[in-house]
């Protein structure tokens, strides 16, 4: 099973969970799954078309997973992103992480998603009754990804509230 799949076909969270669990020693599995929302910016969304830059997508996702493995002890990692035409309610992205440690599994899974959101070359074009529109990147996602850099830099700093 590859660690990373970019595909048009749907995926099965149940099957991915079973694969992540095959490593018997793992205590913790954290999984994220994202689905196409039926509403966005106040408009009803019928579906969306996902474009990507294939050669770069693969290498960026590999780099993100490698960074996660450098930061946390992980037994298994799986990232799936769908491309092409999708419909409201469809599954779009999956990230699953297995680790002996709960905190590592949570952090690595969220780290991968935050970085995927801001670094992996995917673009969504949404279909609404008002017509089609390319989605704009959101500052909130950039902020979410930036926390991980800051966390690394300020590791032993003043902050009691960090989740480092």
């Amino acid at each position, binding site marked *: 099973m590859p660690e990373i799949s970019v595909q048009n076909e749907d995926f099965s969270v149940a099957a991915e969970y079973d694969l992540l669990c095959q490593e018997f020693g793992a205590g913790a599995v954290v999984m994220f799954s*994202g689905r196409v929302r039926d509403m966005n910016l106040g408009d009803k969304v019928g579906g969306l078309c*996902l*474009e*990507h*830059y294939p*050669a*770069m997508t693969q*290498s*960026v996702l590999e780099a993100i997973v490698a960074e996660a493995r450098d930061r946390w002890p992980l037994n298994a990692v799986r990232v799936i*992103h769908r491309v092409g035409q999708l419909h409201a309610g469809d599954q*779009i*992205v999956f990230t699953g992480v297995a680790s002996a440690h709960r905190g590592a599994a949570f952090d690595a899974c969220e780290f991968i*998603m935050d970085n*995927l*959101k*801001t*670094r*992996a*070359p*995917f*673009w*969504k*074009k949404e279909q609404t009754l008002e017509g089609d529109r*390319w*989605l*704009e*990147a959101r500052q909130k*996602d950039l902020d979410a990804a930036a926390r991980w850099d800051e966390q690394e830099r300020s590791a032993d700093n003043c902050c009691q509230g960090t989740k480092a």
Partner: protein
Amino acid sequence: MIKVLFFARYREQLGCSELQLGEEAGNTVSSLRQLLSDKGENWAEVMRHPTTLVAINQTVVSDDASIAAGDEVAFFPPVTGG
């Protein structure tokens, strides 16, 4: 020869997903941007958009990066996957 790719909104706006360019592209991202800007107002608009990203051989770079023969250069808007 270099290969130049455009994605998503820019691909649509320029009506172009891929270009082949020769030595006229110059040796840096800046010179390539200048050449493309001269192709018309819609091209100039994409090139001067403050959030346009550029990648050489699938790695995002800044405008002072060098371009060599055989490189693949891509222009695209901020990513919106996930």
